[in-house]
């Protein structure tokens, strides 16, 4: 039965496509960004584990749709009458249909685990695999498939499959979106509780795997029992199993709500489970320190940081250290004095922009999420309309000098420059100064600039 069901499964036919989609999303999604430039080439177990788990976002809804299609097939083909008169219990038949749809997806998931896990095992210098993440992804995949099967069984129409896929995709994303509304049910999504990108080596992941396994495993059981109930046969057994599965799922839900990990944002400064580590450093004009997981990128990082800081060498108040830290807002500074250090989250060339911003602004990390850099009503009046790009009065001068540092080091000119006022022109003007004049201005004003006491009018 399983052989026939698997062989005729649409999921089997589509498995190369599913693998391709999952693979593409996994690698582009790694480090939480779709931008290829941010791929640093450093493999980290937690990122690999969470990337694998999060691939359920793509694979899960797809396999749910395929299961729904397979489940509705008998009704659509007018086979119900004939099938109902066969000896094999309908539950066994439905289980084979489910397995036929789910197994190719599970195979894709396992293959993806190998494809991501092997290079990580060979190259990672920090951490260990997270089996809880692996299992949450696997069970969520089975749950999605079972929910799709139930949907197709109860509503065997042609539109059930795409609707089930879309509904599950939304269901997986919705809990994470609800956080912004103050409703923290993120554990309802298998993609939740991955550590903040880049923060994973600095703090332990949230420990909700067991709760999520109970929740998703229970829901998987509920869906399968609902199918068994609809199919007839041993109704009493199915009802008992349904109640037991519901209880398991409810237990997962209730215990998740009561864990302390529920209300924390992994990787953030107030996260209590920071991981101790000894940074690896390279001395230079500025001493650059990175997390040992990123040791491979230390030379490249040191070169990028010193290219940015090169014009400032020897000027008092210029930080002596550039230190990799968790990119989460308000993250711990690893014991470095913020007056003497500039912090960056992403190692390698990506450190360049952060260092350029941080080196001219000692208060950079006091602007969590840059929320207080949003335009005020006064700013809007001043600019006449909402600026496409915005330069806040409090950091205008710092942004100009930071933009110049970035530009001369080969990075982007500025992040916050634009229309009101046009800081690009100011950066160009600062860059056009003679080296002696600029150095003299920097020696005189850098401490004030870094403290936020220099305005646009003070710029040469």
């Amino acid at each position: 039965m399983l052989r026939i069901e698997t062989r005729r499964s649409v999921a089997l036919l589509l498995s190369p496509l599913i693998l391709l989609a999952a693979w593409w999303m996994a690698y582009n999604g790694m480090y939480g960004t779709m931008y290829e430039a941010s791929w640093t080439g450093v493999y980290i177990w937690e990122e690999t584990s969470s990337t694998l788990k999060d691939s359920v976002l793509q694979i899960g809804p797809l396999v749910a749709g395929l299961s729904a299609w397979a489940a509705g097939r008998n009704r659509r083909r007018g086979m119900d009458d004939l099938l109902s008169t066969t000896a094999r219990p309908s539950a066994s038949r439905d289980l084979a249909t489910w397995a036929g749809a789910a197994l190719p997806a599970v195979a894709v998931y396992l293959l993806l685990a190998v494809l991501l896990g092997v290079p990580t095992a060979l190259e990672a210098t920090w951490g260990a695999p997270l089996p809880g993440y692996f299992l949450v992804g696997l069970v969520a995949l089975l749950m999605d498939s079972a929910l799709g099967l139930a949907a197709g069984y109860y509503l065997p129409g042609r539109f059930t499959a795409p609707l089930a896929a879309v509904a599950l995709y939304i269901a997986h994303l919705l809990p994470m979106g609800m956080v912004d509304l103050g409703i923290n049910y993120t554990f309802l999504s298998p993609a939740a509780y991955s550590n903040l990108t880049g923060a994973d080596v600095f703090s332990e992941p949230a420990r909700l795997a067991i709760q999520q396994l109970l929740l998703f495993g229970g829901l998987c059981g509920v869906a399968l029992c609902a199918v068994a109930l609809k199919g007839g046969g041993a109704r009493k057994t199915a009802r008992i199993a349904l109640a037991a599965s519901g209880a398991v799922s409810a237990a997962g839900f209730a215990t998740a709500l009561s864990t302390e990990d529920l209300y924390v944002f992994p990787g953030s400064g107030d996260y209590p489970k920071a991981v101790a580590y000894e940074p690896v450093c390279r001395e230079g004009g500025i001493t650059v320190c990175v997390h040992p997981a990123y040791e491979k990128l230390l030379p490249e990082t040191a070169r990028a940081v010193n290219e940015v800081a090169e014009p400032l060498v020897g000027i008092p108040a210029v930080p002596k250290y550039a230190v990799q830290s968790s990119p989460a807002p308000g993250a711990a500074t690893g014991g470095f004095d913020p007056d003497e250090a500039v912090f960056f989250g992403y190692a390698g060339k990506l450190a360049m922009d952060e260092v350029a911003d941080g080196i001219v602004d000692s208060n950079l990390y006091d602007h969590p999420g840059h929320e207080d850099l949003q335009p005020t009503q006064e700013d809007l009046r001043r600019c006449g309309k909402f600026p496409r790009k915005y330069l806040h009065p409090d950091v205008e001068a710092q942004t100009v000098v930071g933009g110049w540092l970035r530009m001369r080091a080969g990075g982007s000119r500025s992040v916050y420059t634009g229309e009101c006022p046009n800081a690009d022109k100011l950066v160009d003007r600062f860059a056009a100064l003679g080296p002696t004049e600029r150095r003299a201005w920097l020696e005189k004003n850098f401490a004030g600039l870094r403290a936020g006491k220099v305005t646009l009018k003070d710029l040469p």
Partner: protein
Amino acid sequence: MEMNVRAAEVTRRFGRTEVLKNVNLSVGRGVFGLLGPNGAGKTTLLRTLATAIEPSTGSLSLLGFDPKDPGERRAFRRRLGYLPQTLGYYPNFTVFEFVEYFALLKEVPNKDVKPAVARAIERVGLGDRAKSKMKTLSGGMIRRVGIAQAIVNEPELLLLDEPTAGLDPEQRVLFRSLIRDFGERDTVVVSTHLVEDVGAACTEVALMDGGGIVFRGTPEDLKARGEGHAIGDSPLERGYGAVLAGARS
């Protein structure tokens, strides 16, 4: 004579409509024909005997099993062959896969599945099309595949609902021969509106109308009932018309 099918006061309702009305029926070995106009209740009776639906009231004994008991029902279904009036199929299955699927569902022992499937396909004359996909077959061939799946488990009770619909004359002759073979060992119940099928293959016949059985006897008995009746091209058709006219008068 051992009765393989016993129905006692069987009634089946769909909502407020009573489709079967207190049907009493006993069928032993041989080929038993069910005749009747559209809506007489033939298909519902066959579905009930096939355990696709349960009777609203009354009792059944099928091959000595009580279908109300899950264990006995399962045992009965292993020995049942059923061809529904409308045969659904999976278009991408090959003929062999389709029949194999039902062999597995009927719990034919694993080691016997492949030879049983090959034998069933051969018996309906589709040996050369075993690897053809269902979607490439004509309507008559699909009907024959349906018969193949019904006989793949060598059933002791074979229920066939309009089995000859869509078959060409040559295939119909072959089919009648096939069910006669089955009837010599087992019980075959054939629902049909083609009275010539009854004449050629059935050892006994019942005529249904309005949800009840209005006649039961041999084909010869039915022919005898038609003597003196004007409507019909053959003695059986005249008998059929006479019985129906009598039942409705």
